[in-house]
């Protein structure tokens, strides 16, 4: 059934990096004791009223502008009704008919092919609380509710159904996450739930303008999950259609353990959300001047930065791409280049050594890197000056990463300075030659590999501190020609 076309749309929920909740002053910090970050407003107690968090609106506008959306000057909140014990009011304040922004686009590149995916809308809403069951849900003797999350500001970014493969969906999600990180609007942490993704997926004959029956998939908390869940669903729906069956319109959950989606509820029982405009909040007017001020404060976005890195620093497209995956990493790279001056050398060290220790797209980890960019620059300067060899530098780097100390102090403390004194090295070379007459003979008789052994012996005798260039030159001078 591979002749069917896959149609995917993603709904991404991003928790906004505000200090306080969407409609009250409670803290949004993660991991606090249950219900310690709540007040009558976010608990939805009788008589209380919401007040819009201006900072959340600003972060939403920031995102919408970065995605090229049109900001709706007049937008408003609505109530979305459904009953669930973790919902304090049994309605969620969200945006419906008049969202914050609409009609944007996100440029992605999958398998070398650039694609522009339409963004339908960006809107704001409040999160709900969390149910905590004692043991398994079915047998739990009791369940409790933690409302710490209730009222946390969420931004929902809805793509148009323009993604054509699970791979594209994963690429879209990755690109979107990078932009959110660059904008500083969301920490992008999928495990902690600050970035969540639901997908709508259907199949149709190629060239068809009609959409097939769509299935919604929830509960995908990593890029891998998204791709695997969608791949599974393409197969499942393809098999069903191939066998002449109907795909049922429903919501399915991804079960990563078993690697398959399972039916959650049939759309026959889908909720009628009974949306209506939130009467407790006047319409939100977004003044053009406000939008322009936010636009003026937008940072350089990943695509622009990638191009600039390639052009200004002479990096390959691949390296530029890796270095701009996270804003913190790109900032780190640029700071080290500023301090040291050789972009390619810095890029090599960041890509080969630093990224062995840190994920490129985890801004929090990169920002907390025990080697500040100035210290990496300091290490590279020691190499440039010939004080240590590149090989020694790798050991120093490891020590720097573990201890947080700078390169000069580690080198000084461990007596690691390179032996670049020709007189001193000359004596060592003489000793090595004298101690290995058999190897010298091999070399003379044409076994060129013998040279490597002799270099190694010199290095061993100097505990790796000998300047390799100098060792090679001295050996060249001292070995008998034959």
């Amino acid at each position, binding site marked *: 059934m591979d002749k069917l076309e896959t149609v995917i749309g993603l709904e991404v929920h991003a928790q906004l990096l505000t200090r306080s909740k969407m409609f009250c002053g409670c803290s949004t910090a993660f991991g606090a004791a249950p219900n310690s970050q709540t007040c009558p407003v976010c608990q939805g107690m*009788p*008589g209380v009223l919401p007040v819009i968090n201006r900072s959340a609106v600003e972060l939403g506008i920031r995102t919408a502008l970065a995605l090229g959306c049109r900001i709706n000057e007049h937008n408003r909140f609505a109530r979305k009704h459904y009953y669930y014990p973790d919902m304090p009011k049994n309605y969620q304040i969200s945006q419906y008919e008049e969202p914050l922004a609409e009609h944007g686009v996100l440029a992605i590149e999958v398998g070398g092919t650039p694609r522009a995916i339409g963004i339908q809308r960006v809107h704001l809403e409040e999160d709900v609380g969390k149910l905590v069951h004692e043991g398994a849900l079915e047998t739990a003797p009791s369940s409790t509710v933690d409302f710490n999350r209730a009222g946390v500001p969420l931004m929902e970014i809805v793509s148009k159904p323009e993604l054509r493969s699970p791979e594209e969906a994963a690429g879209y999600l990755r690109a979107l996450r990078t932009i959110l990180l660059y904008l500083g609007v969301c920490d992008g942490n999928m495990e902690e739930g600050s970035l969540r993704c639901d997908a709508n997926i259907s199949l149709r004959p190629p060239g068809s303008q009609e959409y097939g029956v769509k299935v919604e998939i929830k509960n995908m908390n990593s890029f891998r999950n998204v791709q695997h869940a969608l791949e599974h669903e393409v197969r499942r729906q393809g098999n069903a259609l191939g066998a002449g069956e109907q795909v049922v319109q429903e919501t399915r959950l991804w079960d990563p353990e078993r690697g398959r989606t399972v039916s959650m509820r049939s759309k026959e029982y889908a909720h009628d959300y009974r949306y209506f405009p939130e009467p407790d909040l006047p319409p939100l007017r977004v003044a053009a001047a406000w939008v322009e001020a936010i636009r003026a404060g937008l940072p350089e976005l990943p695509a622009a930065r990638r191009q600039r890195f390639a052009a200004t620093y002479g990096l390959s497209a691949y390296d530029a791409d890796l270095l701009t995956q996270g804003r913190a990493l790109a900032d780190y790279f640029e700071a080290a280049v500023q301090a040291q001056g050789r972009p390619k050398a810095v890029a090599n060290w960041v890509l080969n050594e630093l990224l062995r220790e840190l994920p490129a797209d985890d801004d929090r980890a990169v920002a907390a890197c025990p080697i500040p960019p100035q210290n990496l620059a300091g290490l590279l300067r020691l190499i440039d000056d010939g004080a240590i060899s590149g090989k020694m530098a790798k050991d120093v780097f490891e020590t720097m990463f573990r201890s947080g100390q700078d390169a000069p102090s580690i080198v000084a403390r461990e007596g690691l300075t390179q032996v670049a004194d020709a007189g001193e090295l000359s004596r060592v070379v003489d000793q090595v030659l004298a101690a290995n007459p058999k190897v010298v003979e091999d070399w003379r008789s044409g076994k060129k590999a013998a040279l490597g052994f002799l270099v190694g012996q010199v290095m061993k005798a100097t505990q790796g501190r000998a300047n390799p260039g100098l060792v090679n030159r001295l050996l060249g001078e001292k070995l008998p020609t034959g």
Partner: protein
Amino acid sequence: MLTRLTIEELGARFRRGEATPSQAAAAYLERIAALDGRVKAYLTVTRDTALGQAAAADARLAAGRPLSPLDGVPVAVKDLLCTRGIRTTCGSRILETFVPPYDATVVARLRAAGAVLLGKLNMDEFAMGSSTEHSAFFPTRNPWDLGRVPGGSSGGSAAAAAGDLAAATLGSDTGGSIRQPAAFCGAVGLKPTYGRVSRYGLVAFASSLDQIGPFAKTVADAALVLGVIAGADRRDSTSVDVPVPDYRAALAGGVEGLRVGIPAEYFIEGLDPEVEAAVQTAIAVLRGLGAKTEGVSLPHTRYGLPAYYLIAPAEASSNLARYDGVKYGLRAPGGRHLVEMYGRTRAAGFGAEVKRRILLGAYALSAGYYDAYYGKAQRVRTLIRRDFQQAFERVDVLAAPTTPGVAFRLGEKTDPLQMYLNDILTIPVNLAGLPGVSVPAGFTQAGLPIGLQLIGRPYDEATVLRAAHAYQQATEWHRRKPPLDPAPR
């Protein structure tokens, strides 16, 4: 007798040292103990709170440092205004045990002004009703005739103000729930402009219509209370930052040259002839005082009631969704699973009128019916608002009856639609968000009070109060007291 005095008179005695807030509080508490068993205006009497606040007021007044004209004045509030540490039931079983950890903004402002809280007043459950027979606990009775209703939903607040069971009270008005019971009980009842008074801590019935306002013995007292509770509140985004004038000072000046509009559509078929006659007389009094009266038309008035009975239940069905037995208040036992627990709790916790409106509202909002019902009602609302705007281009204030009839007997109106008609003359004002007041304007031959309704431009409570005050200065109706007092010993 301290309980007969207006706020102004009581304050004057405090300042002259002829009485203390503690004496006033004690007098009211004594009167409540003696009479409220018959009127049943109070759901909760906060005796200790009152005596404590009164003692603090004694000290301030003795030191010559009153906080406001309300300092030491005994008041009471409708039981849908949240009071920190004092149960707030909304007249419903589902909130019977609810003790809010916060004060409504108006309650906080009363406290800050030094007012003394006597207690919480009975009401139709969640403010749905026109008679206070729909309280889950007991009906309140009209102080003029204990066999009759006080009106609703702020029946407890109206009866307490009229029966001298508090110097002033607060109620809420969603479709007439201050003005209609004020008319039935012979009190002054003021519904301010939507947005004039913070709704924070008012347990919502219909958010876009609800407004808090005072009941008082005189217009001047209502002006004093409004001055204390009005003004923008950061916790209510729908409250509006329009300067709050000195309402007491604004009463002076009379009605000479004031243009008073008489809306033809408010003198409907079915209007009680005694009510009509009294209101016409009242209009003549205003004319006699120098006001210029002229007929105006509010052509969409007849659509107000149906639009209201879509919008208010729709919002109510949403606002009342939070009462589910999970977090506070009643939880009915025996449910085997969540949905059954919800069902049992709401079945046991809500009365018939509330259930009726939740069902109506949920239906009006449901997909496929939204445009036909809720959407259309909102468009009607715009037309009604426009009617008023056009009228106020020609006149400064509108004068009309508050209610089509006078207080009816308990249990007399069993058909909900008949009951809803009580609010037909007050509802359009809520749909348009305007200020309106009901002042005593006469009595039927049977001795039941009649109300005159004055309606003003948005945020122009000052003009409404000035006209009402001028009328009151020229008449004696508000001085009559209901025949409640125990026979002299």
